[in-house]
């Protein structure tokens, strides 16, 4: 992984997560069953797409990095199949038992070994939604970060970044090196791997490395998750003509003093 001068080497931090839509909750124990389906975190897929877009427009390389169990190879393969050049798996079977800051430290330690100047990460994760690793990697590297990113332009060392802020759209400027947390696949739609891409990906190698330091979670104790009960016995209208259904809803809204 040598660095050519003047070339922008981009790393994308990705995570393999349970498919959030196939999680079921046991009606008796109220414990969640995560199912067997594992996918690339939604926002990370956008980040990979944006990184490949940057590479196509401005040149450079894209390396995907994950800290996780060996099954996480699948999300790395998928990224390789959509145009990423290299992949690194930091072997961390117990990745969910480690706090966010430790995960950020492990990732930052790996990133330091390479010549990356631009790090992309998803805005948040589908499973635990901590949303901390991006800004924390930036902090540990001593780099600036920009969140909620929707588009990136690179000119020399300058990054012009569009972001979707609270009640406004913003354009911010920063310089390399930097960490960007990607929100949206709007400008550069998420790329799905083609069969040809998958074949090509299988020929690329995934570097498997040991974490440079030990993860920990000594400062937080998590209880087992239990289902949130919501006991709503609502009125559901089915097979009612639109006008009549609308009239019943309007009447109900008035009854509840909502209009």
């Amino acid at each position, binding site marked *: 992984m040598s660095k050519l001068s003047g070339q922008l080497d981009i790393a994308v931090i990705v995570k393999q997560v349970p498919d*959030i*839509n196939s*999680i079921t909750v046991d009606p008796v124990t109220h414990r*969640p069953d*995560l199912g067997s389906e594992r996918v690339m975190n939604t926002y990370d897929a956008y980040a990979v797409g944006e990184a490949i877009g940057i590479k196509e427009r401005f040149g450079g390389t894209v390396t995907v990095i994950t800290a996780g169990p060996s099954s996480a190879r699948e999300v790395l393969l998928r990224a390789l199949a959509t145009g990423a050049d290299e992949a690194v798996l930091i072997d961390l079977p117990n990745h969910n038992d480690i*706090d*966010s*800051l430790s995960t950020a430290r492990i990732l930052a330690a790996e990133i330091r070994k390479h010549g990356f100047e631009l790090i992309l990460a998803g*805005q948040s994760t*589908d*499973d635990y*939604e901590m*949303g*901390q690793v991006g*800004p*924390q990697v930036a*902090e*540990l590297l001593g780099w*600036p970060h920009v*969140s909620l990113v*929707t588009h990136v332009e690179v000119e020399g060392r300058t990054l012009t970044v569009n972001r*979707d*802020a*609270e*009640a*406004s*759209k*913003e354009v*911010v*400027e*920063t310089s390399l090196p930097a960490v960007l947390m990607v*929100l*949206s696949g*709007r400008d550069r739609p998420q790329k799905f791997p083609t069969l040809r891409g998958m074949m090509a990906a299988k020929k690329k190698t995934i570097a498997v490395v040991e974490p440079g330091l030990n993860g920990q979670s000594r*400062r*937080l*104790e*998590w*209880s*087992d*998750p239990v289902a*949130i009960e*919501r006991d709503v016995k*609502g*009125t*559901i*209208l*089915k097979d*009612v003509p*639109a006008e009549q*259904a*609308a*009239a019943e*809803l*309007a009447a109900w*809204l*008035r009854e*509840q003093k*909502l*209009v």
Partner: protein
Amino acid sequence: MSSSTILVIGEHHNGRIRPVGLELITAARRLADETSGEVVIAVPGSGVAGIASEFAAIQGVDRVVVADRDALAPFLPGPWTSAVTSLIWLFRPFAVLIPASITGRDYAPRVAARLDLALVPDAIDLSLDEGHLVANRAVLGGRVQTSVRFTDTAAAMVTVAPGAFSRAEPGVSAAPIDAIDVSIKADDLRVSLVEKSEHRAGAKGLTSAERIVSGGRGLGQAENFALVEDLAEVLGAAVGASGATVGAGWRSHSDQVGSTGHTVSPKLYLAVGISGAPQHLVGMSGSDYIVAINRDPDAPIFKVASFGIVGDLFEVVPALTRQLKAMAE
């Protein structure tokens, strides 16, 4: 200066206190009564004397400190990281409560990394267990809840979800206000705002709106949001959007309700063409009344709806708008 202090970061937006700030005061007061500590509201910003006085007038606040620096406006996570880090150094609090706003979520992780503190985001409840802070939060798309206990004695950082606590009310006397000098690291000034376009006045009010009409993928295309806007207008409601529509570029992120957007708890939440993905439900399931209009009878949104219509939104919504308009006249 004691480790029983509860430090609240008093955020503001467009010159106004964030309503979630008042909710944080309620949460902080409860904790402080147990720790026998003080509730200190810190107000970082530029020209924020007025905001500070507003916070000082709220019941349950013991002290307000103002960190007034030009670099703190407009909001950028770097300078706010510097300021909040300084404040935590200064107060050595038992706990730091930060709004789980788009801005709070931006600087809180950085502060935690800088000070080597544990941070739990999006708390929906806070309690004490033998002197340790316990934060409840929803995970796995809001389907399940877990409690997280801070085990060491360093300051416990949490961001608190909007709508999790009731809002504190103005009190009879005002808390003292002091100016605090915070240092802003030069390295934290490396991002600059070039352009900012305010869009859609309605979006600003999403978290404080009493009524919200939200649209989802079922609308088919961006233009069809007009149906949602028309209905919102007769209801005097703010317009929200599901994550799918934001991801598709139909709506801006500022309209998004859900785990990476706003958490809302209006009296009425009317979901149009929203199936109710877990990421969406986590953002609106605290609403008093949820109404759903969707074609798919198995859509999860109906499981949380007080009133649902299984049907074609393109027929039901215009009919509803027309009838409500007629009712108002």
